[in-house]
């Protein structure tokens, strides 16, 4: 929206997923100026890549639409996409952030008409679909993308495809000379809401992710289930496109494990319970889900949801930490382990294995500008040493969406406390 000048009464929000958007909007709707910085070309983050939410089985883009409408009608939020904060100097109440903005090669003239995408030939991996599909190298990141503006993949810059895109655009929206920029943003307080990344499943060597095509992660499974995903919502296994009717869900893939993530990622039990619905929806007659778990953590009101899945005859629960996965001659992943209820060994073939991968804070290992106190898992702790840099959402803890939004709303108040103090001092 309208660009306001950032001052030391501005709140800088880093990360444009649901936590960052929430923090930005809640602060702006309380009358504060906000600069929202997102590294991807569109807002929405990981929740926009989910097909449905537990426990209502509603669609995350429904809430995204509301948040985008709030954003479109609020001149107090200035959004920077393809932007990353590379440094923060100063003190609480008076920071200057350095923001690197990568070229989009498409300016504000873009009407999202799609002519450029029709003109180019090169297709590149589509990160929105966790690279399970491809999209054109001139693309709109997704149907709900905000800003609603196309992007050119850097891979086509300097190739004839780029010239084709430029020639196709009637509105002078394509600027192939766009360069990376570095800008300074002043802020009184910073909300760090960079979210999470799925734990790298390949590190769990015995599970064969990356070696066996039919072992996928829970976030990839969301894209397979999504009617607008790469398979049009059909649950087909990657190796041969066969219908995956017998699906195994492996809990704590990386979580609760001293060799991987020490913490429990909280959301994965509910996510797998939810995903059993996708199997049943796809194959109402003969879909089968098996959940291999240590404890089912359907915490608080979610218990009802768990009980309903428990009552579903198509879902089997096996209390077991899966030892390893192999592949049989038909490409079926075979799950090996011991059912601790009765100590029975099993080696069970499935059509598809979904690893309920844990949540790792994106901020972990990131060169966070300034000094931020984090716990041993990499989550930002609330600590006075952080000054006026406040964590929000999954940057602070393993949270589900509801709790992440709560956390982001709280972070907005903490930031407002700082900028109100600045305003008072200057009044």
């Amino acid at each position, binding site marked *: *929206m*309208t660009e306001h000048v950032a001052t030391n009464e501005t709140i800088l929000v880093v990360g444009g997923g649901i936590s960052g958007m929430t923090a930005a*909007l*809640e602060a702006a709707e*309380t009358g504060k100026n906000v600069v929202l910085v997102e590294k991807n070309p569109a807002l929405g983050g990981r929740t926009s890549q989910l097909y449905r*939410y537990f426990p*209502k089985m*509603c*669609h*995350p883009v*429904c*809430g*995204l639409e*509301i948040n985008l*409408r*709030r954003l*479109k*009608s609020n001149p107090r939020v200035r959004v920077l996409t393809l932007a990353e904060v590379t440094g923060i100097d100063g003190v609480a109440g008076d920071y200057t952030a350095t923001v690197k903005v990568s070229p989009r090669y498409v300016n*504000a*003239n873009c*009407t999202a*008409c*799609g002519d450029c995408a029709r003109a180019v030939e090169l297709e590149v991996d589509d990160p929105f679909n966790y690279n399970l599909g491809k999209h054109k190298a001139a693309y*709109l990141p997704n*149907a709900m993308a905000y800003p*609603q503006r196309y992007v050119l993949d850097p891979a086509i810059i300097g190739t004839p495809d780029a010239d084709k895109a430029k020639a196709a655009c009637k*509105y002078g929206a394509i600027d192939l000379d766009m360069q990376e920029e570095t800008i300074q943003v002043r802020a009184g307080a910073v909300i760090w809401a960079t979210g999470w990344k799925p734990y790298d499943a390949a590190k769990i060597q015995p599970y064969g992710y990356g070696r066996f095509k039919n072992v996928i992660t829970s976030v990839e499974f969301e894209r397979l289930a*999504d009617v607008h995903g790469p398979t049009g919502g059909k649950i087909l296994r990657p190796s041969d496109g066969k219908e995956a009717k017998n699906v195994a869900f492996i809990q704590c893939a990386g979580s609760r494990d001293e060799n991987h993530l*020490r*913490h*429990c*990622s909280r959301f994965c039990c509910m996510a797998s319970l939810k995903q059993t619905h996708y199997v049943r929806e796809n194959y109402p007659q003969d879909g089968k889900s098996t959940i291999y778990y240590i*404890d*089912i*953590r*359907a*915490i*608080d*009101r979610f*218990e009802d949801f768990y*009980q309903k899945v428990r009552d579903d005859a198509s879902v089997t629960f096996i209390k077991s930490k899966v030892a390893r996965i192999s592949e049989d001659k038909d490409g079926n992943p075979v799950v090996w382990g011991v059912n*601790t*209820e009765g100590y029975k060994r099993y080696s069970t073939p499935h059509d598809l294995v979904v690893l309920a991968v844990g949540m790792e804070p994106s901020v972990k290992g990131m060169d966070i500008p300034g000094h931020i106190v984090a*716990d*041993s898992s990499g*989550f930002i702790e609330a600590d006075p040493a952080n000054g006026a840099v406040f964590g929000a959402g999954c940057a602070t803890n*393993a949270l589900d*969406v509801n*709790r992440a*939004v*709560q*956390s*982001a*709303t*709280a972070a*907005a*108040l903490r930031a*407002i*406390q700082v900028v109100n103090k600045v305003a*008072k001092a200057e009044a």
Partner: protein
Amino acid sequence: MADIKVAAYICKGCGLGERLDTDALVKVAQKDGKVPLVKSHDFLCNADGVAMIRNDVANEGVTHIMIGACSRRAKTEAFFFPENAVARANLREGVIWIRPDTEEARETTQDMAEDYIRMGCAEVKAMTAPGGNPNTGSNKTLLVVGGGVTGMTAAVEASKAGYPVVLVEKSSALGGWGARLFKRIPIHEPFKSPADTGVADLVSQVMGDSNIKVYLNATIAKTEGAPGRFVVDVATESGATHTEDIGAILQATGFTLYDMNKLPELGAGKSPNVVDQAGLEALASEAAAKDGVIRRPSDGQPVTSVVFVQCAGQRDTTGTHLSYCSGYCCNTSVKQAMYFKDANPSVETVVVYTDLRTPGNGEDFYRSAQEKGVIFTKGKVSQVLPSGNTSTVKFHDLILDDTDATIADVDLVVLATGQVPNSGVNIEALAKPQVAGEEGEAPAEGEAVEVKPISILNLTYRQGPDVPQLTQGFTDSHFICFPYETRRTGIYTAGPVRRPMDMAQAREDATGAALKAIQALENAELGRAAHPRSGDLSFPKVRLEGCTQCKRCTVECPFGAIDEDEKRFPVFNESRCRRCGTCMGACPVRVISFENYSVNTVGAQIKAVDIPDEFSEKPRILILACENDAYPALDMAGMNHNEYSAFVRIIPIRCLGSVNTIWVTDALNAGYDGVMMMGCKSGEQYQCHFVKGSELGRVRMSKIDDTLKTLNLESERVRDLEVAITDIKRVPEMINKYAEELVAIGPSPFKGF
């Protein structure tokens, strides 16, 4: 009304110029739309196009703008004219992108575009730019009800942001349950041992803050008004009443521990050596004050063995006890087991659980307990049999599948019983909101929730004295993305009254809720709406002289915004209103309207559509589409070029609840062949962002059959559809199928009248 000057702008970009006869559209706007100033532009959303519009506003006195270009969801930065009334005719996503680019389609596509121009012109003329609710209040004080950890945190955090707080606590001291804890679950690295509660510090922060006024031994006798101008009577023990002017309210009334006496099979009430978790905290605090040894209540002997029974009276599938999990009890038992182990590693501590639930870094805490020698046994306790100074615990060992597993000679048994919210009166169990005039219908079966007789807020609201509950007594929100949305504007709930939670989460929750409360009072002062139409300056206006006191609006308002005066006329509390328009939809005499959304703005569009005669083979279908879900789905269908019938005319609506039946009857009378209503899912898993809007709309429309009969029309002429925002493929299919069905039924007999 001030003079209005309407201008219409028609874009030729994005293929509109090639696919449509834009000169004809200009003529339609002039002739049918009767707009004096009509311009077309090659690229309306670019700087030059926008400057042209701005120039007309500045120099030509244009007040009302009709933009015939892309969807109202697109190019919002360019077409941002908050001072003006604006209507957008969706010619791109709504016309050329959903029609094939063929010669034979050209005529019907042009018809569609021309109708949208007519509709846009008619709509904008019926609008005025909203000026904000004038009935505001500017009180900035936050009322916090409840002086436990949640309430105190909210008070301190609001005060830090510069807002005065009135904190009301019913007992004689601050602290709540938190003050009764010996230690808390750790919230910082290394997550290995119980930590100090910090409650005493919090109490002194509250007491030492001159910005926070504390009432102890006090309750809320009366709450009236609206955000920004609540007037609250605080009753104190002495019988005195203090009146406070309040901007917004935060209810942090916490929980009551589930009564363990309902669990005699677990030994509760049969021996002092069977306690709940609060009982154990008391024993631990008592011990700490002496020699640090936790003693058996029956005879004061040191405890040498203790069993923790998880999910006592919780996660119950029989319907007798709590069906939910309270979330905090696993970590609490881990902590309490450590009370013993840290003092004396030889004390036997066993936790019997079905699923151990220690999310996040609780896992480290759990691991630490295992390292300290706490035994965790997966099982379900069936019986605790006290005898003398010890008890026998019988359980189903789920690992060995031993239904008769036993732990004998246990000194102390701790039952993890869970949280019951202190949420006040369940106003919906008292009176299920029904559409007025439905006497005789059996009320829907209420949930098995105890009706608590004592109100907490004593709201003077027409719809009852407390915040509506969601489920099992919790005053939670149903929304994943918007956890704080209660159904009473400017009143937020936080802590275990909202949802079961531990202290760390309660503190976070309190901080977030405090922000929402502050935001509500700030926006109330500016006359703006709260979520989900945050910032909306329109508000419901009522022509009382036409009102028949039927009470539909006061009963149906999903947010309890409308009261009744002594003559049973509605009293609109605009700052409590969320602008969904349910009242407008409900009103049989159509006296309720918003400046930019009214029976007229939609009605005028319906009337503006050109209805070809019955021989033209061009049926007309009206679609009323929820602007949050169905309309975006239709837009995205356009972006994907999913084609649908050229015979539909789509009008976005705020909510299905805002649909007034007059729109449907007017459309049918005017010769439309069918009406499709597209709203969000209603019922238990509702997805309506106005909570009850789509449900109330559907109840209202279920009566449309009578109207159809009166008109001698087939019931198929009106279709109520549940549409989700992701129905990008499905919606065009539904439209096309319906269009075919209508062809089979034949044209409406009302054409040409």
